[in-house]
């Protein structure tokens, strides 16, 4: 192979290459998820200009800045509320919220449950690295018992969120969990979520080697991926109430597609309801 051989990254056209290098640490799982997302965007059949990405704040919150799509980097926890406005005002857009566990389930938890309840037709991709990494490793609502964080120096004693259960209970149309190891399944799930009418939610377990794994003495990023490989069990259709992760290193983590149902999304329901109530006077929205 000659030294000047040109290598083309197959997802380069979906990235803002003028912004590279990115901010993420080596071994961080977020980049892997972005790679999967770029491939999903390529394969989903939706024209690129019809996809918008909205992020909150944090390491995963930086995703919007690297994707060559209409993209908005908003405030901490409020990406879903911004996305709600964007989607309602321009219903033909496929709006993706891409952010972290602290951003979406901590400070932004209220917007997560209400968007799921409304069955708003957006896709939420939540990268769960079990920590507020950007600010140096504080505890998040997803961190399991005994996790060491800067704000839980003696370990976590609170119960944590089982996010698939929470979002499913609120009424989401599509709920899945994958990991940064399961890239083939993750990309496939992203394609499904992008094309799903209604609220679609994917939780992705991803290693944070610099902060979470190091502080909890759980090894390197590769150890975490090996752990995902050996201990994740794919159970499509599993009851979300059974998929909680409340130990640092449980023997079994259930992953897969837990919910995939069809029901009217927010705008469809609004149009149907108001047409029924107002008849010809109603100006249908986004149709």
């Amino acid at each position, binding site marked *: 192979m000659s030294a000047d051989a040109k290598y083309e990254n197959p997802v380069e056209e979906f990235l*803002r290459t*003028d*912004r590279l290098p990115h901010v993420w640490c080596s071994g961080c799982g977020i980049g892997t998820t972005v790679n999967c997302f770029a491939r999903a965007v390529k394969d989903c059949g939706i024209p*690129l*200009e*019809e996809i*918008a990405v*909205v992020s909150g704040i944090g390491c995963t919150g930086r995703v*919007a*800045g690297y994707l*060559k*799509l*209409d*993209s*908005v*980097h*908003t*405030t901490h926890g*409020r990406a879903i*509320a*911004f*996305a*709600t*406005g*964007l*989607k*309602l*005002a*321009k219903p*033909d*857009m496929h709006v993706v919220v891409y952010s972290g566990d602290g951003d979406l389930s901590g400070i932004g938890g*209220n*917007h997560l449950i*209400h968007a799921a309840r409304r069955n708003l037709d957006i896709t939420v991709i939540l990268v769960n690295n079990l920590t507020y990494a950007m600010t140096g490793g504080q505890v998040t609502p997803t961190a399991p018992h005994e996790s060491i964080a800067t704000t839980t120096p003696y370990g976590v004693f609170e119960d944590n969120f089982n996010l698939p259960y929470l979002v499913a209970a609120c009424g989401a149309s599509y709920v899945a969990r994958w990991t940064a190891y399961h890239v083939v399944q993750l990309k496939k799930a992203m394609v499904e979520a992008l094309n799903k009418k209604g609220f679609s939610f994917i939780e992705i377990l991803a290693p944070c080697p610099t902060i979470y794994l190091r502080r909890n003495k759980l090894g390197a990023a590769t150890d975490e991926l090996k752990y995902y490989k050996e201990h994740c069990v794919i159970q499509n259709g599993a009851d979300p109430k059974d998929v909680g992760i409340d130990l640092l290193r449980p023997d079994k983590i259930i992953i897969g597609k837990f919910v995939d149902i069809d029901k009217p999304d927010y705008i469809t329901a*609004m149009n149907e309801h*108001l047409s029924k109530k*107002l008849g010809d*006077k*109603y*100006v249908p*929205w986004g149709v």
Partner: protein
Amino acid sequence: MAEIRYTTADPKGVLTGVHYMDGNHAACEGALAAGCRFAAGYPITPSTEVVERFAARIPTVGGVFIQMEDEIASSICLQGGAWAGLKAMTVTSGPGLSLMMEHISLAACLETPCVFVDVQRGGPSTGLPTLPGQADMQQVRWGAHGDYEIIAIAPSTVQECFDFIIDAFNLAEMFRVPVFFMMDECVGHMTEKLVIPKAEEIKVVERRFTTKPPEEYLPYKPDEDLVPEFPYVGKGYKFHVTGLTHDERGYPVINAEAQHEMCWRLVNKIKKNAPKIWKYEEDQVEGADVVVLSYGISARVSIKAIEMAREKGVKVGLMRLITVWPFPSPRVKEIASNVKAIVVPELNIRGQVAREVERVTAGTTNVVRVPHAGGTVHDPEVILEAIMEAAK
């Protein structure tokens, strides 16, 4: 350069005719006439009638209303609507406004054209939910973190709730800035005659959409008037915008130079264009010994006191601020050099506008505060007393 594009109101949103209506409903009708087609709100007294009417009207006009889970959500949801290309507003009162602060800063930073309606009530905290105040005037100017400038407009009558909220939307589009429509409980709930003109008589400003193709477009490259052009969502512009300090490309740049460039432009686009924004009304200011400077419901109450003072032979004028921020400093300075005193009645006790009068007049005249903690309007006798004392 994207020129300011004026058009006339879309007749679908205009309820032409003579009405008997309260200020909150009139503000909603004004918003619809201005082309507002997206509103996100959360219930709060005494403002809720604005969005209640919007929720009832918008399905037959063509647009969306959503009641969000809280004011934090409303104040960014409307920005999602605005970035999608629609004219958008949210409506609130003091406690809700306090919750919205972070997104006022975001709107200033992203340069989101949008309108925040604040029907002011007495504070602090839950305060007087059903009674008037004018104590949010400094909060909208300085309340959120960082350096930025906003526009604030204060109506005094039901007719002005209609007329001036159209100005609010137009200014938001012209300068890509959050505009605050500073009503109060009295103006919001008083019912009086409202004349809604024909759609073709209502001038509205269109979004400053870029005329450049995507490959030439930069989200924060300003035009000559320091305002950048707006991108289309969903048309391949693939723009990026962020609340981080950013350059013309919209990309985050975390250093002092980028910060200097961005903050000064956010401030200067309002400061340097202020003469195009200022709106105020004067009555018998020339030759006056004393001028009453006020705004909103307090200006209206002042008229009674001014009439009583004139009957007593005092030469007293009125300067009524319609634009409160940016503050019309040159004119106030000019008036100060010709009068014995400027009397400032307002429904707050720390002189939220009076201290600005004191600052810009810098001791060249006597500034007399007429503070009132809110809960009702001033007794005109109290304002009269201040005028008589100042005229001595």
